[in-house]
Each structure stands twice: as C-alpha cells, then as structure tokens.
C-alpha cells in the first residue's frame, strides 16, 4: 500500500508530464471535489442558459432564425448532458447534481440571470456570451481530467456556430434602419459588462485559481482569458459599427492589448449571491420543468420494467 504522500507525488508528476487523469485513476479528494464543482456548474449553466433564449423561439422574426435558435438551444441541452456525464464519472449521480441546482446549493453562470429583453439580445448572447464561453472552453480542451477535456472538445466543435449566428443577427440589425441599429447598441450596452464578468473574479481575488492551475484543471487565469476576450471582441464591434460601453477602453501599444475599465464587482457579487434580475425566475422555471416532467420519467421507467418482466 502506497502512502498518501507518495500517491500525491506520482499524481502531480503525471500531471506535469501532461498525462490525462482518467476516472478510475487515483486522485486527491480535493481534485475530485474541485472538478465536480466546476463541471457541474458548467453543466448547470448550459441548462439554465436555454431559458433566456427559449423565451424567444416563438418570437423569432422568421423561420430561418427560428430553426437556427432551436438548433442552438438543442445544442445547449446536449452540452449540459455531455458535462453531467463527465461529472458522473467522478462518482456523483445525476439526481444529486440536479437536486443541487434546484435547491440553489450549486451555482451556474450568473450571466443567465440577466433578462433577454429584445431580439437583439439573441444576437448579443450568441456573439458575447457564447464568445466568452468559447474563450473559456477552448482553454479547457487541454484540462487534465480526460472526460472533461473530451466533453470540451465536442462542445467547442459545436459552439462556434452559436457565436457566428449571434453576430449575424447583430450584423443584420446594424445594417438596418436607425431603430434597429439602436436596438443592437442597446443590447451591447446591457450585455458587455456581464459578459466580462463571466470569467469570474479577478486573479487577486480568485479563491480557486492557484490550486486549479497547479493541477492543470485550469490552464489560464481568469484575467488572462478576460483580456483575450476583450482583444478579440473590440475589432468585431468596430465592424458592426456599435460602441462598447467603456470610456477607458483603448489600445495599449506597449502591452499589445486593450486596456479596459474596472468591472463593477459589487454588481457581480450581488448577482452571484442570488439577487440578480432573474435569479428567482430561472430557478422557478427549472423546478417547474423538473416537477412537471416527473410523470414522464416515471412512466418511461414503469414501461421499461413491464417490458423486461415480460421478456424474462
């Protein structure tokens, strides 16, 4: 029997060699817990993320947009499922994960606690929210836990269309009349800062970063990813011809990056704590959907049991 210290040393060496950790391999409890927390939060975000968009399916301006929106939302359900499956390989079951979401114990990305007020918001969500998610997820394709990395590769492959369709919605509005362009600008005004918040607290205040970097669960820090997103997005806003709502935003020749203003961390904490504009509504909707689907799950199981008894 190897002692804990030896196991830990071998584990770290394996990670340093860029070897993936697989479900049945030995891993420190803290690594397992961190992954369950992070992967399940990620899964919950995909599931709750369907709600602001689901709200617009019946109001999409034409059939093409409606079919695209449906396909995007269906992808998100699938992404939630890939991630729940990855979390389950760590020894936690699906029902526990769902309970943790519905009871409010588990977190999901705060961005989905903001309302989608206009059709332009479908554009801004695709362009900015999915854009920020992609920056995060591309980095996670190289995460040290095998099943998580594989889920991320699959998600990244599918997610790229989400961002492009969102940008295309805004492009159409920005090339339209003054009212349409105003609608696009208004959605950028409302979604810009919450999108920057998606990368989480600043490195100096991030509770989990050091450990997660050491174990290569995270490959880049929150601030590095946020900077990457800003650098990538500013030129895209320029092509649209709408203005990012930040007076401090400007190119810094010396750093080779855009400087940008301070995030309102008070608002961030407020929403994380459950007091954003839609926190209560999102969870109520999820609970309602879960409860109302109960009889379907029960009936399917009863049918399966009856059939297997007949065969046996």
């Amino acid at each position, binding site marked *: 029997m190897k002692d804990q210290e030896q196991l830990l040393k071998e584990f770290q060496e394996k990670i340093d060699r860029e070897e993936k950790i*697989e479900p*049945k*391999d*030995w891993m420190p409890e803290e690594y397992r817990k961190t992954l369950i927390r992070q992967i399940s939060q990620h899964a919950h975000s995909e599931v709750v993320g369907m709600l602001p968009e689901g709200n617009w399916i019946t109001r999409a301006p034409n059939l093409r947009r409606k079919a695209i929106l449906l*396909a995007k939302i*269906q*992808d998100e359900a*699938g992404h939630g*499922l*890939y991630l729940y*499956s990855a979390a*389950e390989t760590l020894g936690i*079951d*699906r*029902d526990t994960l769902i309970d943790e979401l519905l009871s409010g114990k588990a977190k999901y990305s705060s961005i989905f606690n903001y309302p989608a007020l206009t059709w332009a918001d479908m554009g801004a969500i695709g362009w900015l929210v999915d854009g920020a998610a992609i920056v995060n997820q591309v980095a996670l394709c190289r995460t040290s836990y095998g099943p998580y990395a*594989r*889920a991320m590769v*699959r998600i990244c492959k*599918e997610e790229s269309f989400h961002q492009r369709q969102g940008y295309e919605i805004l492009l159409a509005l920005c090339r339209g009349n003054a009212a349409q362009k105003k609608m696009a600008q208004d959605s950028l005004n409302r979604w810009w800062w919450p999108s920057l918040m998606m990368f989480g607290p600043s490195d100096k205040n991030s509770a989990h970063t050091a450990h997660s970097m050491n174990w290569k669960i995270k490959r880049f820090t929150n601030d590095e990813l946020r900077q990457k997103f800003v650098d990538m997005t500013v030129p895209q806003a320029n092509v649209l011809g709408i203005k990012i709502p930040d007076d401090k935003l400007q190119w810094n020749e010396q750093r080779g990056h855009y400087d940008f203003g301070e995030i309102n961390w008070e608002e961030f904490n407020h929403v994380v704590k459950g007091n954003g504009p839609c926190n209560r509504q999102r969870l109520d909707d999820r609970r309602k959907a879960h409860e109302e689907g*109960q009889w379907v*799950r*029960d009936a*399917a*199981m009863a*049918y*399966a049991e009856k*059939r*297997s008894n007949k065969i046996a």
Partner: protein
Amino acid sequence: MKNWPLFEIFIRSRNGLDHKHVGSLHASDAQMAIENARDVYSRRLEGVSIWVVESKYITASDPGDKDAMFEPAVDKIYRHPTFYKLPKEVDHM
C-alpha cells in the same frame, strides 16, 4: 423514483470504420438510449450506426494493475517490423 440506468454509447461514423465510444447517457431502456443517443451524439451527421450498452455490464481493468498488465509488452520490440535491419534493396519488405 427509480433512477434511469446509465448507458455507454458507441457510434460508427461510416461503414468500414469501428464503432467508437462517444459518451454516455441515462435512459429507461436500451431503445430509448438509442433514440436519445441519436439526438445527443449525432446531430451533425456523426454516425450511421449506434450501439448502446448498459454501463454496469462493462468490466474494466484496474489502473493500479497497469504495470503488471501492459509492461510485459515493453521489452518485446522484436514484435515490430522496424526491429529487423535488412539490406537497403529489400528494406521495403
């Protein structure tokens, strides 16, 4: 409620290739697992055939036995064609 069992999903991307493990999902029975696998794992023409098997029927080797299981192959390099040095004229053999 009794939990829906977990199924492992394997997809053949096109004829001539092996079925490959792509992930897992919960379903009440194998038929539903196939239907859900179609929706979850083949939305973009990823496959022409799906296998599902309940996860509990898979027996896996113990990662702790990795050395005992696989190390004996390490020193048997004579099982590879490159082990044999032949004259240049016939080396494409």
